[in-house]
Every structure is written in structure tokens, then in C-alpha cells.
């Protein structure tokens, strides 16, 4: 069994082309699942369950795998987390459930992520629907944005019998699960299967409906009893340097690799700007789809980078070069062809507002990194719609109370668009959606 669950395995390393981006971890065999599930101690009030943001009863679903009750296992997962199939693949389990496993200190933590995937694969392969929808409540709820938070909230409300419409601006629902997570971690089919499951719960999905464009908040407020905003984040910000127009957006790079991989042009010599998890995904795509050299540049050091440690370990083994303490100042372009990235060296000074040491340019330190393709993955802009919708914000994010209600009564929000504190992740978004659904349900029909 792979020690680094949730991470791309060594076997897949080195594969190139589209195959190199196929789901990296194989499913557990039945025997592997039985042996691994037998290893679980079945802790009481287990720390893995505490560490999971959605608090899945992990010992419960693992023991059900061991007893051969896979439908029950899947139900135990989905009761806490409707997007269990995505989370089984994309969760940073080292930081969450597996990181808290009592077997971790001296031994090998239980491969919780992969066992969860085993139970989820079983129900999706069987086409078995776990939940029966409740009696119709007569309440109408609009959910705006079909990413993990929106799907979770919509599904939970539909389970309670509410009439839920999910509006999505893109062609496909699923949000970052569909568009933004590299295929070797989560194939697009998994995200779309979850969307279909949410639809079977009774959620109506309307795609190509964007709030602020054809959808007006006031109109929705008039037609629906409650609204949940799961708007995600905005576009990748500008670098603000000459030649920027030749730089590819990292999220688009990932999206192309998932949905249109054969037409994605990969440079021979690729520079990725940024050192978060998205940047690592971009570097992985470039490397696996044929780039001869991939360089990641970051203005701080490995110590400050926002990528998870296991992601950094992975990308180092992919043969990607790093240029730390490096700031791009100009993209060198000749006749609309990228020739390289002009950079300066940085040094770290006092801590800035983010709590990390502020990088400062070193004088006369300009140098060129030759490149024919430049990708930027430097985070996303904060919820751009918050102020246009006249919502109160906190550090640029939508401000919500402890029940996920915004400054507008009856309008709730969750997911990355409210993540003023803590790391944005799929599983946190799922939990927001679930808790907001509870709050909305209680507001509309009371606890029952």
C-alpha cells in the first residue's frame, strides 16, 4: 500500500502525455481493502473523525468495509459528506484524518482516503442511490454556484424535501472538482457523477446562469424562500508586469488538460509562477505532457510556500526545478513569441501582514530564465461579486455569521468566497454547504 495516500504514486511518475494525467492511484483491490480496514483499531470518539472538517464517522465506515457492508459504508460517508467521492481523492489527508490517526506516530496511518474511495466507487459503480428524499416541504431555495459548497448545500436541502434550483455560470457543474483539480488526482468523470447524484436527489441545475448577468439577486430573492451563495473566488490576479498578455492562467491550463487535453499546447521550456498547490498541478501537467524543462519560481522560499508538504515532496520527484527568492519583472516576448522570464533575486525581510517575511528585491540581481511558455498560479481574487451584491465583507470575503447568513437576511454563503480565515479546501466547502443547509432548513421549517 502506498504510504503517501492521497498523493500521486511513484508508479505513475515518469509517464507522459495524456496517460500521465490519468488517475494516479489505483483503486484498492477487495483484499487490500479488507486487510487495510482490518488494521483500523476502531478508536472510540476517533481523532480522524474530529480532524475531518465534515466529521465523517471514519471508524464506522471502515468497519463496514471490513464486514462487507459497502452500501452501509457509503451511507456512513455520505451522511456527513455528500461529495465523499471527490473528498476521498482530493483531501489533504495528511493534514486531516490520516494525520490524526493514532497509528501514525509509530506506524503507518490507516489509508482512510483510499478506503473512502473504495466505498464510494462501489456505490457509484452500482448506481445505487443511498438517500430517499423527504416529503416535499413547499419551500424554494436558490443556490448560486455549483462548486462543492453549492452542491453540498443543494443536496442536503433536497434531502430534506426542499425544492432546490442550482444556478451555474459554466457549461458544467462541479466547480473546481470538474475544472480545477488535476486529472491524476480526480478525473472529471468523478465530479460529474457526483453532480448527477445531487440531481437525482431532486436538485434542478441550470447552467450558463450567472448572477450579475442574466440573474439578478433581487429577482431571486423575490422568487425563492432562501438563497445560498457559493460563488468561489475570482480570476487569477494580474502580475502587473510587461508581457503579461502572453502568460497563461494556471486554472485554465488545468481545465484544458482535463477537458481538452489533446489540444493543450505544452511548451518545451515552461516556467510556472507561484508555489501553491495549483502551481504544482500546473508544473505536473507541463512535465507529464512533454515539457523538457519545468521551472517553478517563487519570491519567497520553500519554507513559506503554501503548497502542502506532501505536494512539494511529490513535485520534487517529478524533476521540476525550483527558483526560490525569485520575482518575475518582465516576460521577454519577441514577435509574440515568449523567450523567457526576466527576474530579480529577492531577500526576506520583516514579517508582513500575512505573517510571512516580506520579500524585497536585491539590487542589480536581474537574470533571465529562458522559457517558451509561462503559466501563472498565484492564487485567485477574492469574491468579486460581494460588493456588487451589497454584501458586507471581511478582508474582501463575504462576511457571514455563525449560521452562514450574510448581511442580507435569508441570503447565506459558504465555500471559498467566505474563507477569510483558514485554508480553502473542497472538504471545508462541503462542510459549509452542509451547515448552511441546516441553518436554512431550521429558518424555513424549524428543527424537524
Amino acid at each position, binding site marked *: 500500500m502506498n504510504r503517501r495516500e492521497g498523493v500521486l504514486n511513484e508508479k505513475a511518475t515518469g509517464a507522459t502525455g495524456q496517460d500521465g494525467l490519468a488517475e494516479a492511484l489505483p483503486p484498492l483491490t477487495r483484499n487490500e481493502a479488507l486487510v487495510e480496514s482490518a488494521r483500523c483499531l*476502531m478508536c472510540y470518539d476517533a481523532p480522524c473523525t474530529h480532524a475531518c472538517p465534515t466529521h465523517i464517522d471514519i471508524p464506522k465506515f471502515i468497519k463496514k468495509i471490513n464486514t462487507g457492508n459497502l452500501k452501509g459504508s457509503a451511507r456512513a460517508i455520505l451522511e456527513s459528506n455528500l461529495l465523499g467521492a471527490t473528498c476521498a481523492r482530493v483531501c489533504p489527508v495528511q493534514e486531516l484524518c490520516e494525520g490524526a490517526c493514532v497509528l501514525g506516530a509509530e506506524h503507518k496511518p490507516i489509508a482512510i482516503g483510499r478506503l473512502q474511495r473504495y466505498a464510494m466507487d462501489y456505490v457509484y459503480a452500482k448506481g445505487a442511490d443511498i438517500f430517499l428524499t423527504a416529503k416535499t416541504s413547499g419551500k424554494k431555495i436558490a443556490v448560486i454556484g455549483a462548486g462543492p459548497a453549492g452542491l453540498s448545500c443543494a443536496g442536503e436541502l433536497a434531502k430534506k424535501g426542499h425544492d432546490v434550483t442550482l444556478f451555474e455560470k459554466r457549461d458544467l457543474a462541479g466547480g473546481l472538482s470538474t475544472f480545477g483539480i488535476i486529472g491524476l488526482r480526480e478525473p472529471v468523470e468523478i465530479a460529474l457523477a457526483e453532480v448527477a447524484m445531487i440531481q437525482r436527489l431532486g436538485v434542478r441545475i441550470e447552467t450558463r446562469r450567472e448572477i450579475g448577468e442574466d440573474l439578478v439577486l433581487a429577482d431571486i430573492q423575490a422568487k425563492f424562500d432562501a438563497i445560498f451563495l457559493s460563488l468561489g473566488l475570482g480570476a487569477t490576479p494580474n502580475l502587473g508586469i510587461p508581457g503579461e498578455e502572453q502568460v497563461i492562467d494556471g486554472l485554465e491550463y488545468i481545465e484544458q488538460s482535463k477537458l481538452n487535453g489533446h489540444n493543450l499546447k505544452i511548451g518545451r521550456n515552461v516556467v510556472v509562477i507561484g508555489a501553491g498547490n495549483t502551481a504544482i498541478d500546473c508544473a505536473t501537467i507541463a512535465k507529464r505532457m512533454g515539457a523538457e524543462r519545468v521551472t517553478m519560481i517563487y519570491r519567497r522560499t520553500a519554507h513559506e510556500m503554501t503548497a502542502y508538504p506532501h505536494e512539494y515532496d511529490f513535485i520534487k520527484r517529478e524533476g521540476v526545478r525550483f527558483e526560490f527568492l525569485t520575482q518575475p519583472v518582465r516576460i521577454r516576448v519577441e514577435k509574440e513569441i515568449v523567450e523567457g522570464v526576466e527576474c530579480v533575486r529577492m531577500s526576506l525581510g520583516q514579517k508582513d501582514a500575512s505573517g510571512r517575511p516580506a520579500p524585497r528585491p536585491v539590487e542589480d540581481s536581474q537574470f533571465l530564465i529562458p522559457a517558451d511558455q509561462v503559466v501563472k498560479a498565484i492564487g485567485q481574487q477574492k469574491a468579486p461579486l460581494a460588493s456588487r451584491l451589497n454584501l458586507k465583507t471581511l478582508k474582501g470575503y463575504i462576511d457571514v455569521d455563525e449560521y452562514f447568513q450574510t448581511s442580507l437576511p435569508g441570503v447565506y454563503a459558504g465555500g471559498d468566497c467566505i474563507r477569510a480565515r483558514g485554508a480553502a479546501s473542497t472538504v471545508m466547502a462541503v462542510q459549509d454547504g452542509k451547515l448552511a443547509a441546516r441553518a436554512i432548513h431550521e429558518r424555513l421549517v424549524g428543527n424537524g
Partner: protein
Amino acid sequence: MADLRINFAGIRSPNPFWLASAPPSNSGAQVHRAFEAGWGGAVWKTIGAPVLNVSNRYGAWHFGGQKMLAINNVELISDRPLELNLREIAEVKRAWPDRAVIVSAMVESKPEVWHDIIKKIQDTGADGIELNYGCPHGMSERGMGSAVGQVPEYCEQITGWVMQVAKIPVIVKLTPNISNIVMPARAAVAAGADALSLINTINSIIGVDLDTFELVPNIGGKGGHGGYAGPAVKPVALNMLSALGTDPEVSQSNLPISGMGGISTWSDAAEFLLLGASSLQVCTAVMHYGFRIIEDLCDGLSNWMDEKGFKRISDVVGQSVHRVSDFKNFDLSFKAVARIDQQKCIRCNLCYVACNDTAHQCIDLVAKDGSIVPPGSYDVRSNGKEEAVSTRPSVQVREEDCVGCRLCFNVCPVDSCISMVEEPSGRPSVTWDEITQKQPEVTEDWEKMKAYREKMGIHIH
């Protein structure tokens, strides 16, 4: 290095480990290979009456990812021609003069038939004979095997017939499918047997197929009880072995006992020796892993004996028999309490839930600030490994409430994390037997019991 040689009722072997009478000792070629691997002896698969076997003859019980904690079988005695078996027994014995070759036999319950088979076995040059009074399936339907072992009178009668002609040591193998193992053992002693062996397999049904509702294993749509053996039966075997060792009649006969029933490792073997077995038979572990396991059986046993200062097997045999007793003789004032080593504890809380749900509710979850907290006392928004690990309460025993039941000790997955610590109870030693003799009213009347407890300072939680 310890001397592993044994002399069991006159049967010598270089180590105490014999293949039990079973599929591993079915043929000359197999026994040759076993001896090459180092086995001290082999009890040939039972020969005797003509039989036919069926397919799907072995079932197995698997648990927690571990294969074959027990096996069950409906295989009968040897289905190979008698003459072929006898010829191969003679060949093996000639080739391996230093090993113990014992032949298990089972025939119709007629004196002349038993006389005939015993003589034939003796003609092979074999070192001993084991009388199979244990086979619980098939043969018993024909009045043989456990049909004999379950009736002490039959056991004594047939052993008597055998002893009339036997010139080599005769071992009587007992069936565990009986309420008191001592009775057939006494019968064998009375008939003049040279040694005893136990246990044969236990009646069992392994399971039911949840798709077809057929029994496991399925024999053409039918199934039935088969003989149960392997690691899971060891405690049953140890109990029956100790029952013989503590029975005055059997123990005074000084008949050696060949122990078997779930021996898989050298440490299992050492336990059988300590409880009075002086030769050891192995089957299921060999059927799982092959003849090669003999190497660690001998090596491990020898190393353990060296460590404990035992020079030869006979020094070990029966060392624990005097510890075997009955509840009425236990010291009611003996006190032990559970203590958890907080450095070793991994906070799985299995001791907590076991104690709280099923024992005596004397383990608490204690938060960092020293307060006792209920399980799951974290906010729904709390998550991540740092929070989960750093805020996890510790498990602590309220020793004044602990009855020393030892359940937590048994469920704890960490070696030496929970220990049962002996504590002075402050009460003089007393047994139930002594109370019954001196104060019988305490054992018969709850009010008197209450008064006794108050006087002695015994608090029930």
C-alpha cells in the same frame, strides 16, 4: 543449547514435534520431506477400514484479515490402500531410524480386526501406535472414531483388545467432543495404555453461504459438521490437557501425554509443555505454511529454554500444572488495578468504551485542564490534525473504582501500555472454599453477605 530430545513412553525423537495424524502425514513422500525439514516424528494418517472421500472437504474460519484462524474438515482416514500405507511406513522407518514413526489406526470395533491391524503395524517396524478414538465425522457414523472416544466403556474395551497383542507403545487419542475429558482418559489408563494424546478435532460448522444459503464448505448442496482445529482451538486443548494433569487418577498413572490442538509457534509449544504435554503434535500450522515451520518451532523453543535455564524438555514438562486450580481456591483478597502508561497511550479510547459500556465505568476522559469531559466534546467547526490531536483528552483510570476486571488490558492495542498492578487489599487472604467451611451462611444469604462485606471492607461498584 537446550537438549530437545524426548523419550515418550519409550518412543524417542530428536525433538518433541511430530506431525499429527492428518493430511500432512498421508504418504511416504510427504513424511520423507517432513523429516528432511527436521520434524522429530510423524503420526501416520490413520489407516484401517476402507473409505472414500469427498471434494470440498476443508472449510476455514478467517477473521480480521487473518486467514485460517481455524480449519474444519470432513476428510476421513487414509483412502489409500492399506498395503501401500504399510509398505511406505516400513520404508520411511528404515530410512529414518532416529525419527519417531507412529501409526494411527482405526478399524471396526471387533477384537480380531483390531488384533490384525496392530500386528500389521508392528511388522512395519513403526515405533508406536495411536488409537484414533476422536474422528468426529463419517467414521463415527460407522461406530468408530469419536463414537468410541465418547463412551469410556468402549474406550476401555477396545484399548484392552489392542494391549493384548501390542508389543510397541500404544497412545490413546482422546476426543474433545465430550463433556468430561477425564472419563475416557481414565478408561484408557484402566485398559493399560502406554500414553494419551489430545485433542482431536471439535465438532463444528464453519458457516453458511449468504448467497446460496448452502453450508460452507458445500458438498454437492449438502454440508455438515466437521472437525475443527487450528489456532482458535488452542485454549480448549490447554484446558483439557490441564484437566488430565490435575485429575488424581490420570496423573498418578504417570502416562505421558502428547499435546496438540492449535500449536502454531514455539511459544504455543512451550505452553503445552508447561501444562504437562511431553510430546507435541502439529497439523493446521503445517497445512497453512508447510513443513518449513519446524525450524522456528525448534529454534524458538530452544532459545526460550536457554533463556529460562531449562536444559532438557523434561525439565519444562508440567511446570505450570500445580498452578491449575479452581475458582473456590482463588484468593478473594487478591487485588489488581489497571494503570495506563500515558507516555505509551495512543488515545484510541478503546479501553474507555469497553470499560464504560461493558465493565465498571471507571475510566475517564480527562481534558488538558484536568476536567472530565464527555466523548465528542469538540465544536463542529473544529478540524485538522493539530486540533484533533492537541485537544484530545487522555484516558485515566479511577483506581479506587477499578475492580481489576482486566478488560481494558485485553483491548488495549499497545504493548505494555496498560498494566494490571497488584495492590495490597488490606484484607487477609481467604478463599471461597474457606468461607464456605467457616461461614457457610455468608454463601447462602445476601444479608449475611452484606454484613460480611461491610466487615471486610469490600465495596462493590
